[in-house]
């Protein structure tokens, strides 16, 4: 007998929903609130026994039968995105390209996430943040604000791989000190060149790399950082009302990006210890990375896609911290007008100023 993944209200047996405001499960009918762990345990007690199968892989775990039966997978024929959610949440439009999506098969071969950072900000907060973001942007085309279909903002859990690493660095820098003086006939500059050697260790943890090809890496990195202290063990309950993207970039493929960022920060950290010089250049950099165990997590993002003037614009908001990013179009006419106006007024002002100053 398979278990339903619908979480029932212990008070009135209606279906519980995840509430972003309180971070608990809330019953829309009797308004009762419950702690997630309590609900899961309650559900487990009510149903027949579940088989928990765990394999040790590099990250993520195997789904158990019960969880799989409660999930639905949708695929987008237009952009190829694969979205999953719990069986009771309906999904009709692709959060990446806005095309309609259809239910496809199961995903028994996938890994289960290790943890998830639940949505802390709800749809209203996301809409308000978008409006605030559009405020005060002088060169934003007016029409853009009006035609923007703000209501279609979607909450998506983006799959990320989290990497730990310890960096062992041995670096050599070329540093210069300058001294100047003059006498009656010459200006002197004395440049002393030094070789600075630094070696040591620095550790990094939970460096995120987005595991979805559909989610633009730069966009995802722009809404960082996420506070991992608020992450919890994964449970399908968190997906209720939201969509989750399936990962399609493996951990092995992602580790390169994480290491690239770690290397860069390591170089900067050691470069900062070379002090007292007028210029410092990296001459040789030898950084060895020891990678720890990776984690597979779901991070919350509010996404909005807009097509305007034939171009596609994507906005993203960090569903935990509210950080909002997105590239907006420039009203070229307005920009040219501003440029022209400042030039004309500026020329007149500068000329007048120079006249009065007698230059």
């Amino acid at each position, binding site marked *: 007998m398979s278990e339903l993944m619908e979480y029932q209200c212990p008070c009135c047996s209606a279906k519980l929903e995840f509430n972003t405001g309180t971070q608990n499960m809330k019953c829309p009918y009797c308004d009762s609130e419950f702690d997630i762990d309590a609900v899961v345990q309650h559900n487990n007690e009510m149903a027949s026994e579940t088989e928990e199968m765990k394999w040790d892989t590099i990250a993520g775990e195997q789904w158990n039968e019960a969880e799989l039966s409660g999930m639905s997978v949708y695929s987008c024929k237009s952009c190829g995105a694969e979205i999953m959610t719990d069986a009771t949440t309906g999904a009709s439009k692709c959060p990446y390209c806005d095309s309609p999506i259809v239910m496809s098969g199961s995903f028994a071969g996938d890994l289960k996430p290790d943890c998830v950072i639940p949505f802390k900000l709800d749809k209203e907060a996301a809409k308000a943040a978008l409006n605030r973001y559009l405020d005060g942007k002088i060169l934003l085309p007016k029409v853009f604000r009006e035609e923007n279909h703000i209501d279609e903002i979607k909450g998506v859990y983006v799959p990320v791989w989290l990497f730990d690493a310890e960096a062992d660095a041995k670096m050599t820098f070329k540093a210069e000190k300058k001294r100047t003086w003059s006498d009656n006939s010459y200006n002197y500059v004395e440049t002393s060149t030094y070789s600075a050697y630094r070696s040591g260790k*620095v550790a990094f943890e939970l460096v995120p790399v987005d595991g979805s090809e559909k989610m633009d890496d*730069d966009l995802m990195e722009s809404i960082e950082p996420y506070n991992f202290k608020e992450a919890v063990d994964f449970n399908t309950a968190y997906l209720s009302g939201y969509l989750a993207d399936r990962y399609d970039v493996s951990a092995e493929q992602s580790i390169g990006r994480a290491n690239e960022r770690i290397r860069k920060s390591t170089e900067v950290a050691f470069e900062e210890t070379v002090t007292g010089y007028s210029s410092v250049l990296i001459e040789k950099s030898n950084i060895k990375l020891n990678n720890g165990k990776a984690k597979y997590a779901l991070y919350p993002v509010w996404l909005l896609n807009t097509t305007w003037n034939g171009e596609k614009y994507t906005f993203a908001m960090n569903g935990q911290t509210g950080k909002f990013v997105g590239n907006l179009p420039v009203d070229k006419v307005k920009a040219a007008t501003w440029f022209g106006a400042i030039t004309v007024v500026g020329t007149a002002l500068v000329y007048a100023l120079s006249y009065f100053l007698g230059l």
Partner: protein
Amino acid sequence: MNILVSLIIAIIIAAIVVGCMISQLKTVRHKSGASDYKKQDSFRLDERRDTFLYKRVTKTPISDNKK
């Protein structure tokens, strides 16, 4: 100062101002480092060695005609 110089200065100012307004609209940035993820107190400098290599002195004659 003739009007041409004023024009050039004004153009530079206009470019800076419009440039700022445009950068308001572009907030997606590539992240080059992982400094947010450095483990607290994990930085350890084991060896620190500054070695003097060489010195070079350049001298330029002080220009005689002052404007």
